[in-house]
């Protein structure tokens, strides 16, 4: 039984058939990379897995339970954490507060909404009272989470630790993305979804992030990531799934996928003659992607 199982999902947006029968599995401890040209449906797929949106057909299973159709906050409670393509930190909150928010679902028993409306009301009231009164065991829990948050931040060396009381909007772009990742880790996710974690980073920052992801891998974190930078994909992924026009084009170990002609065609264009010109013109908007591909080709 896979940890995460996407079975034959379809998604339509008006007339556009964005995902056509996509299936994919993630095993415990695995890192799977999803690649493909822009418009292939990668972020849409992520949105379905994280329950931002729900599939029109098909199912998504996590830990042996169905999650498609759940609201996003319940999916989070089941152990799904994600980062976003544009880096969505909470600007006016400090780095520490951002990370602590990641642990929100772990204030278990406290923030459970319950299933019936009456249960929801009582649990909300209880949460309010606890927020006002803050009994000792509650404060101890907060202290534990804070210590843990600092530990998570240490994964980035001294990039964020000295800044943990600064508001997130004052951070550099790269630090904001790191904060976002730390926040996701605070949830102790069963599956971590990373949407272009190195987008907009320079080569040094990209290398650092790659190291971080490898570290997480060694700790046994199961991850699904969208990436355009193929070097990074090669370095971290156990398997690669390539999407194009809403379908799975090819799937398998990175070496195998990289040299698959169908993939090259999808990125670069149909005939070999136009390949060099195509490499510059077609493909993604990512300078890195085109460069990486031309290097291979």
């Amino acid at each position, binding site marked *: 039984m896979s940890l995460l199982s996407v079975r034959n999902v379809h998604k339509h947006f008006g007339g556009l058939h964005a995902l056509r029968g996509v299936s994919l599995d993630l095993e415990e401890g695995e890192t799977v990379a999803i690649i493909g040209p822009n418009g292939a449906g990668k972020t849409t797929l992520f949105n379905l897995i994280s329950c931002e949106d729900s599939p029109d057909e098909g199912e998504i299973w996590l830990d042996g339970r169905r999650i498609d159709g759940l609201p996003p906050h319940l999916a989070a409670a089941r152990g799904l954490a994600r980062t976003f393509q544009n880096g*969505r930190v909470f600007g*006016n909150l400090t780095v520490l507060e951002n990370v602590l928010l990641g642990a*929100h679902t772990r204030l278990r028993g406290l923030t459970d909404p319950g299933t019936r409306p009456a249960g929801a009301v009582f649990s909300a009231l209880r949460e309010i009272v606890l*927020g006002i009164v803050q009994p000792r065991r509650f404060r101890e829990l907060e202290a534990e989470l804070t210590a843990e948050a600092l530990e998570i931040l240490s994964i980035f060396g001294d990039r964020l630790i000295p800044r943990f009381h600064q508001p997130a909007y004052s951070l550099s772009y790269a630090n904001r993305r790191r904060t976002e990742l730390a926040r996701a880790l605070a949830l102790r996710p069963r599956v971590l979804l990373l949407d272009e974690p190195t987008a907009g980073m320079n080569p040094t920052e990209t290398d650092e992030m790659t190291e971080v992801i490898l570290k997480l891998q060694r700790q046994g974190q199961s991850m699904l990531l969208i990436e355009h930078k193929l070097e990074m994909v090669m370095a971290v992924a156990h398997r690669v799934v390539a999407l194009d026009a809403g379908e799975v084009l090819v799937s398998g170990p990175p070496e195998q996928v990289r040299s698959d002609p169908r993939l090259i065609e999808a990125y670069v264009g149909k005939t070999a003659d136009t390949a060099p010109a195509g490499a510059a013109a077609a493909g993604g908007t990512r300078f890195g992607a085109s460069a990486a591909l031309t290097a291979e080709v």
Partner: protein
Amino acid sequence: MLDQWINGLVIGNLYMLTAIGITQIYGVAGVVNFAHGSIYMFGAYIGWMAITWWGWPLLPAITLVLAGSALLGLLLERVAVRPFARQGSTILLLTTIAAGLILDNAAQVIWGPQTQALRNPLPHWHFRLGNSTVTLLDLFILACGVGTALLLHLFLYRSRAGWAVRATAQDREAALQMGIDAGRVSRLSFALAGAFAGLSGLLVGLYFSNIYPMMGASATLKGTTAALLGGLGNVPGAILGAYVLGIVEAFSVEWLGASYRNLVAVVLLIAVLLLKPRGLLAPRRALNPEPTAGTFIPHGRPLRFPRWAAPAAAAAAFALPLALANPYPLQVLAIGWAFALMAVSLNLISGTTGQISLGHAGFVTLGAYASAIFTSRLDLPFAASLVISPVIAAAIGVLLCYPALRLRGQYLAIATLGLGEAISLIALNWDAVTLGPLGISNIRPPDFFGYELVSPAAQYLLALAILLAGVWIVHRLGRSHLGRALRAVREDEVAARAFGVGLSRYKSIAFGVSAFLAALAGVLLAHSYSYIAPDTFTFALSIQVLTMMILGGRDNIAGAVLGAVLLIALPESIRFLGEYRFILYGLLLIVMLRFRPYGLLNART
């Protein structure tokens, strides 16, 4: 029922004019301009002077009105919008409110408060349709409305300047980079909006044959409703929305009675917001677009005070009655504390959780009525009512708000406005429980175990004690995980819910606690005033409380208290200015915001 259809179309005709103006300025500047009604009114007065004092015929008068109102729009832009353009739309809400206040009071000072007659200079040509008469003026108004919509369309879609306007509305930063002078675009938009507003004012004044300084208020409300029905920014939608509103109102009078007219309009508004938030004519959208990276509104950070400051201030406040024998400042501050409680509670929704609420008076009304009914008609002791009334009021409040909580931003704001009005209208019409317009009188003063709190000092201390309890609750919540969750909702709803913060749940929590505290303030006031009626706590109150909160600084409890006390004490202390009082008040508000753009007790970094 031909006659009611015609009635609906005729009044819809009028709504259309203001709706087009409001929707256009919203579409372009992203601002709900609260001074719109004031320019509308000034336009009417300019036209009135031209026609009645100087005897001008209609078309030259209209030209003068267009020019004058456009100038007023430019003035508004220069004084109340441009200096604050970077602070986000909440501050602009406030500055336009202040500007409107100044203009309304200036008009009263210049021309006097009484209603003025405005005779229709058009020939008295008319034709009959069923029992009804349609006049030349009605047709002229229709022509003006449709004409301005067409001209606007041509301008926006066929001219370079119009293209620049649309580009700036979509993305100001990108437009700047393309070499568009965003400042000039802004000026142009406000001039246009001003001109339309002024023209509408004149035409409506002609239709009713009278004008008066406060005529802008209801026009803005109806115009905004019509604009929302059609989708903000959508001009054909505004036209459709206006006629739909007119017809719905005419038939609700027919079937339910004139008192229900506004209530039905409000219910329609809320229904549209919930079902088709982008308006009746909007295409279906897939998903909300992602915000571009780096866009967010800074709140400023609260000023740091030494730890002894708050307890010292509280102690000083408690000691005040000992130092002051004069009951007048004690009375002013007693009311100030009640308003501080309202401001602190609104701050929880708007400052901490980031949901703009324009219907806060509704919660106050619920609490006031609950306690009045419990103590006067059911004979409950005050102490019991003090606890039970806010609970009941909060429960009702949350229940009413719950469906609207999934709305975003300005749509939620409008829905809350509608709910506040609805509560007031229900209080007016539900005679059996609330005694309708008669209100509930002879409400007993607060008493504990037989001891009545009637002296100004006693009422002051009671209000202060309750305020401090409320402040403590909100402070504790703010420091807890709950505060963190609420702020996450404010900062980024999508990210918040991706980490387990269920939006409806946490917004309900914020609204619930806030409603509880606001209702508590309502209980205090009901027992202090001894008489409440449906119009005791109005929309104007909601705006006043919002002003206090923003002035003090968002997400800043001390700021909310300070803002409330200042804005209650300020008009009292400048009483000697008589009629000019509120002009100075509006100016001071704008000046304070200019120097402390994040609020009095918030600062950059």
